[in-house]
């Protein structure tokens, strides 16, 4: 039994938690509210180490076969 660090897995892209200021900037630049964003569960194993709260915004830096790198945002929801 070894403790597994799943953030190192090739399928898992880099997740970061945004500060309130960054969050506001992103929402304003897209002219949306947090509810309009795609969601991520608070219990999602890939964001466990970030200790998120409901209403936080997670920035995902995906490796994309077409764009090289692409940024995606998800709002943290309950369950």
């Amino acid at each position, binding site marked *: 039994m070894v403790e597994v660090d*799943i953030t190192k897995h090739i*399928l898992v892209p880099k997740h970061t938690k945004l500060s309130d200021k960054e969050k506001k900037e992103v929402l304003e630049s897209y002219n949306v509210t947090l509810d309009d964003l795609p969601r991520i569960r608070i219990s999602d194993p890939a964001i466990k180490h970030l200790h998120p709260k409901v209403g936080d915004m997670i920035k995902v830096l995906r490796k994309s076969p077409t764009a090289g790198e692409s940024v995606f945002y998800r709002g943290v929801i309950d369950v």
Partner: protein
Amino acid sequence: MSMYTEYSTKLPKKIIDEVKESVPENISDSKLKKVLDECVREFENSQVEAGEAVGLVSAESIGEPGTQMTLNTFHFAGVAEMNVTMGLPRIIEILDGRKSLTTPMMEIYLKKPYNKGDNNIRKLALAIKGNRLRDIVSEISIDIADNSLKIVLSKDKMREIELTEATVLKTLQKSVKNYNVKMEGVEISLKAKSKETTLNDLYKMKEKVKTVHMSGVKGVTQVLPVKRDDEYIIITAGSNLKDILEMEEVDATRTTTNDIFEIEGVLGIEAARKAIIDEVFKVIESQGLNVDVRHIMLVADTMCTSGVVRGITRYGIVSQKSSVLARASFETPIKHIIQASLIGEVDNLNSVVENVMINQPVPIGTGLPKLRIKRQK
């Protein structure tokens, strides 16, 4: 270098990298700016127009080559019978978001000293294989006279997986209730505690006891060491990502399964999205067909927006639509319309399908812009 960072918000990383590679190193800033400006112009030109029906294009682009896919499962050539669902059935399985797959599979990568392919890998493979009682018995019989089951263990099979009679007895005692488990000579006897046990109950117990997990990883039914490039990996039938990743010898960064829901549970929603893209693309590629990844990426994104994987079925993403008419137009219309009328649901007619149904312009392409007039007082 600062020139590139300036453009990093306007252009995707891949294009910037390509420009970096193509231009001479000592290019002047003004010339580089010209090149990058041209790139931005070209990039913006080739982007999808606002209001384009991308979902429809994706559906047709995946659907059309789908008609040419094979309908059968294919067999691993030569090696011990291990077959994998491929072709259309596999695509349907992924996109429907089915919880139980017809052929769950894992590719287990191993850490450095273990992936050399000597005897260790055989030992490891056998340790991974999940063994149930039925794999190690030579005979199970029912003794009607004293309401008991007699189990004779196969010594050869037990030696192969390094299991002793004592541990088998212990696991049985732990997992079997209402029966007294003890050793009687060479056989293990399971005697019913209550006197009212019928023959029917005994038969049921016989089937149940066969499936008791004995050793190895639960759920893995077959193991097969295979050489991939210059290392050995283990391919398994049956899947249990969580337990496998926790093993010491396993490379936990590359080991994967084809079970999307298991990936979602262990690695999270973003990993599941990537897995959906990889799995669908693998099938399409193996059939010699050509579908742009962007279409598959769109489908995978749609399946994963709600934070959990939802299949494209009436229970999955379609049930999440806000419009009654859109839901009714997919499957089981009467159920949705009756339900909506009972609770007095309102349809704002914001999307495509409901506007098609009532013969109004759909909000797509040129139907998207609206005219708004400020009334003069």
